C-alpha cells in the first residue's frame, strides 16, 4: 500500500512536468475581458446568434450566412448597421460609442468574418443586382408596385399581402410598423433562402424583377403602413 502510494506520487509529479497534462491551463483558455475578445466565432455567438441564428441562418432575423444577401449589401452598410443599429427596429446598436458592448475593431472582426465565411463569389453571376439603397427615395410608384406584387409576390403572400398558403401576410400594419423601408427592399432583393423565400430572380416561374419593379413593390408595401391601434408608450 505504502509503496503504491509512493509510486503514484512520483508518477503524478512527473506528469505535472508534462505539457500534455489535462489539468495544465493553456494560454488560450485565459478568460478575456469582453472588449478583448477578437475571435469571430465567440463574438458572433455572444452578440449575433440570438437573432440571426447560430449558424447565421434560420434565425428570426435576416440570414447573414447568405451569399446573395452578402452580394447585395455593401460591407460598409453592414458595418454601420451593426455599429449604430437601425432605430425603430429590432436591430440594436453594438458600438461602444452608441451604448453597445463592442469596440470598433471587434465590429471590424464581425464584418470581415461574415464576409470571409459566408460570401461566395459568383453567387449571382449573370444577373444585374438591383441596387441595395432605395426604399421610398428610389422613385417607386405605388400603383405599379401593386401590380408587381400581384404578379410576383401574391402567389405566396396572398392577394394584397394579406397572407397566403405558403407565406404570411406582409401588408400587416404591425409588421410594417416594426421594419424599416430598407428591410423591405433588402428582403425583396435578397429573399430569405433559409426560409424558402426566393430572391429578386424569383423561383424560375417569372422573370427577375427589374430595379424599377423592386422600387415599385417596396413603395407599395410602404404605402400599406397604417397606424397600429392601441395605447402608445
Amino acid at each position, binding site marked *: *500500500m*505504502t509503496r503504491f*502510494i509512493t509510486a*503514484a*506520487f512520483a508518477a*503524478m*509529479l512527473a*506528469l*505535472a*512536468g508534462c505539457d500534455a*497534462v*489535462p*489539468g*495544465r*491551463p493553456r*494560454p488560450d483558455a*485565459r*478568460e478575456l*475581458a*469582453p472588449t478583448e475578445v477578437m475571435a469571430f466565432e465567440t463574438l458572433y*455567438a*455572444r*452578440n*449575433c*446568434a*440570438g*437573432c440571426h*441564428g*447560430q449558424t447565421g441562418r*434560420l*434565425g*428570426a*432575423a435576416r440570414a447573414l450566412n447568405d451569399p446573395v444577401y452578402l452580394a447585395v449589401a455593401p460591407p460598409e452598410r453592414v458595418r454601420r448597421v451593426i455599429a449604430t443599429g437601425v432605430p425603430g427596429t*429590432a436591430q*440594436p446598436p453594438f458600438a461602444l460609442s452608441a451604448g453597445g*458592448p463592442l469596440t470598433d475593431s471587434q465590429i471590424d472582426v464581425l464584418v470581415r468574418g461574415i464576409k470571409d465565411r459566408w460570401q461566395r463569389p459568383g453567387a449571382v453571376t449573370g444577373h444585374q443586382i438591383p441596387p441595395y439603397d432605395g426604399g421610398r427615395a428610389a422613385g417607386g410608384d405605388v400603383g405599379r408596385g401593386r401590380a408587381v406584387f400581384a404578379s410576383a409576390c401574391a402567389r405566396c403572400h396572398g392577394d394584397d399581402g394579406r*397572407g397566403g398558403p405558403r*407565406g*404570411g*401576410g*406582409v401588408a*400587416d*400594419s*404591425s*409588421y410594417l*410598423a*416594426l*421594419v424599416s423601408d430598407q428591410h423591405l427592399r433588402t428582403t425583396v432583393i435578397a429573399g430569405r433562402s433559409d*426560409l424558402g423565400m426566393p430572391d429578386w430572380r424569383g423561383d424560375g416561374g417569372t422573370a427577375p424583377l427589374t430595379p424599377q419593379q423592386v422600387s415599385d413593390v417596396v413603395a407599395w408595401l410602404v404605402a400599406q403602413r397604417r397606424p*397600429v*391601434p*392601441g*395605447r*402608445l*408608450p
Partner: protein
Amino acid sequence: MSARGLGPVRSTLGWLEERAGLGGAIAPALDHPVPRSTASWWYVFGSATLALFVLQVVTGICLALVYVPSAEGAYQSLLYLNFQAPFGWFLRAVHFWGSNAMVAVMTLHMIQVFLWGAHKYPRELTWIVGVFLFLCTLGMAFTGQILRWDQDAYWGLGIGASIASRAPGVGDALVSLLLGGPIIAGRTLSRFFAVHVFLVPGILIGMIGLHIWLVLRIGINEWPMPGRVVTRETYRQRYEEEVHKDGVSFFPYAARKDMVACGVVVLAVVLCAVLFGPFGPHGVPDPTLIDTAPKPDFYFLALYALFALLPPWTETVVILVGPVLAIGALFLVPFIAGTGEKSWKRRPVAVLGVLVIVLTVTTLAGLGVAVPWSPQMEAWTAAATPVRYVKGRTPLELQGALVLQNKQCRTCHSLGGGGGRRGPALDGIATRQTRDQLIRQVLQGGGNMPAYGKNLSPAEVNALVAFMGTLRP
C-alpha cells in the same frame, strides 16, 4: 541503505537527542496506549485533515513567494503562475483542490465525531476547539477565495461587506474593518492577504496543537457500544480499565491506518490537480464589467443559495441572527448532550439532525450550482431562437420572435432550453394561455414579472403575442 551506512545518521541523531531530548518528549505521545477498537478506518478523518493542512501550508508558502497582494498586481501574478512560472499552475491547482478536500474531510471528521459521541464528557473542550478550527478553516476558504482576485472574488467580497454592513450600530465599522475603508480598494487585498497568510494560519496552528494535546491528554474516544452510557462518575475509570485491558500502542498499531489515509487524501488532491488543473482566475476584477455571474466556491454555495432564496423581509434577521444561532448551537452541543448514550444506534435525534442538515446543505448547494434564479443577461443576443420556432412562421411572427429577443424576455424565460429560469419556460405557452391572457400578462406583468406595457409599442405587443401563439409542442 545498509545498516553500516546508517551509522553516521544514527550518531548525529544521538548527538542531537542527547542535547535536545526531543525524541524522548515525543515518544510517550507516540507510544501511548489507545483502545484497540479505535484502530479503525472511521478514525482517520482527523489525521487526514491535518495532512491536508500541512499540504496547504507548504503550497501556500510557495504561492506567497510569487503572489503580489495588490489590487493592480494580483491578477497578473495569478496569470503568471498559471501560464509562465514552472509548476505554478500545479501549485495553484494543489492549493485549490487541497482547500476543497480540507473542508470536505474536516466536515466528515466532524460528522463522524458527533455520531460516535466523541463530544460527550470529558471531551467537551476538544469539540469546542474543533468548532473553532472549523470556523477558522471556513475563514481560510473565504479569504483564499478573495486572494484569487477575479470577478468572483470582487463581488463575493462585495456581498460579504454588505452582509457585515447590516449589523445594527456597528455595520459601518465592520465594513471598514473588513475592507480597510468604506469601499473595496487598495488596502482591501493587503488586509485579506495578511489575514489569510499570517493571522488565521497562526490561530489554526495554535488551535490544532491544543486540539491534539486534548486528544492525547484525555485519550481518543473509544468505539461506542449501544447501552454503554456515559456518566461523569464512572466514565474515566471505565476508559482507563478498557485501555489497560485491551489497549494497543498508538504507533504503529493505530497510526498505520492514519498514515495510509493521509497518503490517500493527498494523492487524491494531487490527482485532481493534475487532471482538472487550477481554478480560475476568472474574469478581470473590474467593477465596470457588470456582465458577469459571480459564484462562490462549493463550500459557500449553500449560503449563496439560501441568501438568494430568502424572502427580502427576512434577510436582515436571518443573515445576522442565523449564523449566531448556528455557531452557538455547535458550541452548545456537548453541553446539551454531554452524557448518556454514545452510539448513534441509540441516538435517533442526533442521526436525524445530521441527516436534515446534510440534506439541507446539499440541496441548497445543488440549487447554488443550478442558479435557477439568476437572470441570463447574455441570452437576448446569445441564445438563438430555436430553429423549429423559426420555420414556417409569418413575417409578423418572426418580428415577434425578434421582440422577444430584443426586449430581453429570455433573460428570465427559456426557449428550447436556452435562457433564464426565473420565469416559466415559454415552450408550449400557447397551450397554456390564450391570446388575451398573453397580452394582459405582457402589459401588466404579475406573479414575479414586471409590467412591460410602457416598454412595448402596440405593434410590438401584436407581434410578440402572434409569435407566442405559435409556441406549441
